[in-house]
């Protein structure tokens, strides 16, 4: 919420495009001063808590709030009856009640809210709310969702979306055929900053909401609908975000805090516990995948078939778009003459699933990469050359018929990771370097090394005809005798480093050192979502365009003053074509500011054909490859990842250090899904909603990484950038899984790979 001024002393260069300046919010973060959404405080504030459904599917027969309301210290207890507007939110479909009315469709669905003077008072009061449920048969196996006798989760049926991709030969055959079935468990984003925020009622009858999110404007629209208020009365400001990874695309406590604030007339803070967080946001879709590849005896692909099922859980969230990605990108970055893909997403009474880093491509990658290894073995090629042989190239058409019109260096990426030095053979018996670590489970006996490869790709930005844009307002003025630029966008900084990128672009375009990034809020137009690896491209592009507009205005003014054309801006000077300085910025600006607001769209994408799935669905593709080296204790099923090396084409690294940071962090999340991360759901109940039982990689689990960053500029993108954040999460997991298969000789058709899958016990 504090505006971030530029910090001099950039690490390298002057903090322009291509440099790696220090994070503008870094000093606040290392000193504990940065205000995250859970740190907010307000005079006279009270605390809100949520009462959630204990059942995966039930009818609400009645809610008695009398005792809760009578609890000393309680200010309000709200149910669906207290929703003033339309009780419906959702990213793609308005299918999600802000508070359940009549029916609950998953364990953890919000049913009632309490505001009280202390969080513990509120929690205890919530326990006194008596909800009478009549349990209903729950649909918890997505593979049964489309059976005629399956329980119906919503009136419109259990299918959220089905995508079919058909290309080439309708019934292709090939001399070599390989196939497999794969299953991917439910992963959690596990951002560390819990869902939280502060809603402050305003004198105009509206509300100001300070919240951690990925897209302020899409939140605002949903909150307005539920509150029955116009946008000018629902103002959102981004509070400090403790990571997101897709898990903050949907609303969590946003509407709830606003409802309580408007009812009590007091500022209301809400902050989920870790357990509630596991119920309070969508997860990565679990998936069931059936694949078949046909090839020539030399390994060249003839056709690819896939049947993919995503469990969307109780509400749609972004399931439709995930299915779109699973379908259009589900065969991986390879050239297939004939294609037959079906992807479906269904409703169940399991936890709702939606966006997570890698969005629909992560699940598919485990299957297509395992099958590429099968194919390599069947035709007698190695894992690298089979991928290089079939890898997409610029000028190819992908499975939806879209022309790949910029770099697609699949062969180069996979060969690059192969050629990186391998870690030395393990010689030490230091327990810390062995699977099982200091648990002292082995001294090296039964430990086998394996190496695995994967290459994948991902769309950047929103697809299938979505009106994807960002707005930037850039202002140039003199302050204290020096030029200052203020960049105002609503694009969320979630830790990835967007504010640094905004500053770098403004410095580069306007040649001004001092660049202030305005707090992110809804007083400027939408920045679009901080997801789909899109912000550097789309908001970065908007900032660039707004800077160009400012520059044009300044030069026009200077031109009027001196009667010349062809001027350029050089630092604080206006320079003529002759090289002569015709004016200074101070002279041109005076006390006036130049401010321009620009909405920038990338090249339009198109919906895919409903029958064939053909169409220019995506705006850009990003490619990456990983090589994993693992040591596996094959007797106990314990895995130690020894090395995780990667190569990725980023188009142009605006901030090389931040690019590497994204690749490292993204790789860790992919590795986590391969080996340890799963929300275990049985009969619709989450079994492990804690960091005790849901494991994410620790510093002991992560190996050192060698990272090769390629920069093949995309001529259609600002500065040639290619989205960076997601690809590493997609290719790292399949490489790790392949390495474990190589070490154990087991097929391992499910992730996360558990010890018992390796030992067969």
């Amino acid at each position, binding site marked *: 919420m504090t505006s971030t001024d530029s910090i001099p002393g950039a690490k390298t260069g002057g903090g322009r495009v291509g440099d790696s300046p*220090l994070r503008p919010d870094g000093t606040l973060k290392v000193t*504990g*001063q940065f205000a995250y959404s859970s740190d907010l405080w307000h005079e006279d504030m009270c605390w809100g808590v949520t009462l959630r459904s204990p059942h995966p599917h039930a009818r609400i027969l009645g809610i008695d709030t009398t005792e809760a309301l009578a609890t000393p210290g309680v200010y309000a207890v709200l149910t669906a009856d207290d929703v003033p507007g339309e009780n419906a939110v959702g990213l793609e479909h308005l299918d999600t009640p802000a508070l359940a009315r009549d029916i609950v469709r998953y364990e953890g669905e919000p049913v009632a809210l309490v505001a009280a003077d202390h969080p513990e008072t509120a929690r205890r009061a919530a326990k006194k709310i008596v909800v009478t449920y009549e349990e209903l048969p729950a649909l918890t196996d997505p593979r049964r969702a489309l059976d005629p006798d399956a329980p119906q989760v919503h009136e419109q049926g259990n299918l959220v979306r089905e995508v079919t991709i058909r290309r080439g030969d309708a019934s292709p055959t090939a001399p070599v055929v390989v196939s497999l079935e794969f299953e991917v468990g439910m992963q959690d984003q596990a951002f*560390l900053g819990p869902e939280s925020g502060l809603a402050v009622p305003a004198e105009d009858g509206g509300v100001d909401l300070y919240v951690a999110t990925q897209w302020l404007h899409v939140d605002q629209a949903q909150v307005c609908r539920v509150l029955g208020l116009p946008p000018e009365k629902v103002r959102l400001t981004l509070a400090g975000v*403790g*990571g997101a990874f897709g898990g903050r695309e949907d609303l969590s406590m946003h509407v709830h805090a606003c409802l309580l604030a408007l009812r009590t007339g007091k500022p209301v803070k809400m902050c989920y516990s870790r357990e509630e967080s596991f119920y309070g946001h969508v997860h990565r879709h679990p998936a069931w995948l059936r694949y078949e590849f046909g090839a020539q005896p030399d390994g060249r692909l003839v056709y690819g078939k896939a049947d993919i099922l995503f469990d969307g859980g109780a509400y749609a969230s972004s399931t439709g778009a995930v299915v779109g990605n699973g379908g259009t990108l589900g065969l991986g970055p390879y050239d297939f003459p004939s294609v037959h893909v079906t992807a479906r997403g269904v409703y169940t009474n399991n936890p709702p699933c939606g966006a997570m880093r890698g969005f629909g491509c992560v699940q598919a990658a485990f299957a297509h990469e395992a099958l590429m290894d099968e194919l390599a073995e069947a035709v007698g090629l190695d894992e690298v050359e089979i991928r290089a042989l079939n890898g997409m190239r610029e000028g190819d058409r992908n499975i939806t018929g879209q022309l790949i019109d910029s770099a697609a260096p699949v062969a180069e990426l996979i060969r690059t990771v192969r050629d990186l030095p391998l870690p030395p053979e393990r010689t030490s018996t230091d327990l810390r370097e062995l699977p099982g670590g200091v648990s002292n489970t082995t001294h090296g006996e039964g430990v086998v090394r394996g190496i695995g490869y994967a290459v994948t790709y991902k769309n950047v930005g929103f697809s299938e005809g979505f009106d994807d844009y960002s707005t930037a307002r850039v202002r140039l003025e003199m302050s204290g005798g020096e030029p200052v630029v203020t960049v105002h966008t609503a694009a969320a900084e979630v830790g990835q480093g967007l504010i640094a990128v905004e500053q770098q672009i403004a410095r580069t375009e306007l040649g001004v050192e001092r660049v202030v990034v305005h707090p992110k809020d809804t007083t400027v137009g939408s920045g679009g979502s901080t997801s789909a690896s899109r912000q550097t491209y789309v908001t970065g592009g908007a900032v660039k365009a707004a800077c160009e507009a400012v520059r044009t205005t300044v030069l026009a003014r200077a031109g009027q003053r001196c009667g010349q054309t062809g001027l350029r801006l050089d630092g604080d000077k206006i320079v003529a074509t002759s090289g002569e300085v015709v004016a200074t910025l101070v002279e041109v600006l005076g006390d006036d500011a130049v401010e321009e607001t620009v909405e920038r769209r990338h090249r339009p994408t198109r919906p895919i054909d409903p029958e064939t799935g053909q169409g220019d669905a995506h705006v850009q593709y990003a490619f990456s490859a990983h090589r994993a080296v693992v040591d596996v204790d094959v007797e106990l099923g314990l895995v130690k990842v020894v090395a995780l090396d990667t190569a990725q084409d980023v188009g142009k690294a605006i901030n090389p250090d931040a690019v590497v940071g994204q690749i490292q*962090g993204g790789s*860790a999340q992919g590795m986590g899904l391969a080996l340890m991360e799963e929300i275990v759901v049985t009969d619709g109940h989450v079994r492990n909603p804690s*960091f005790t039982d849901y494991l994410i990689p620790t510093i002991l689990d992560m190996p050192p990484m060698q990272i090769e960053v390629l920069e093949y500029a995309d001529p259609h993108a600002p500065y040639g950038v290619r989205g960076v954040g997601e690809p590493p999460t997609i290719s790292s997991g399949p490489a790790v899984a392949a390495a474990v298969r190589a070490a154990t000789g087991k097929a391992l058709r499910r992730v996360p790979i558990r010890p018992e899958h390796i030992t067969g016990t």
Partner: protein
Amino acid sequence: MRIQLTVNGTRHDVDDVWPGESLLYALRERMGLPGAKNACEQGECGSCTVYLEGVPVCACLVPAGQAHGREVTTVEGLAPEGSGDETALHPVQQAFLEKGAVQCGFCTPGLIVSTHDLLQRNPDPSDPEIREALAGNLCRCTGYEKIMDAVRAAAEALR
């Protein structure tokens, strides 16, 4: 109940503390010191790490009452004092900033306290020793590589 404690060298008298409250809650919500973070409040993530009488603890697991009469140091109290420079950083903080070990930063306060403690005990830790010492601090953003870089750099700066 009322508790009295010294935090970052300043004495605090805190009233109306509910006996179930953690030291973390008291610091964050009653003393205006939200630097220690609340990522799990169940002792699993290390984001709430503070010194209690010079020993690093998960503040979420310590009842506030147990800190009565004791001395606490949080991430807010690590920067060198008295330099008059608001942006003065401890070498551990400086290293995290410079090495890009901070993304969202939610893990950072806990990691900085844990690193500060490690380097006091062991000024020249090997990589396995660093990993062991920081195994209780989760980070979801960085993949830990730049955290390793930062700890190595801080060790060097402090030697």
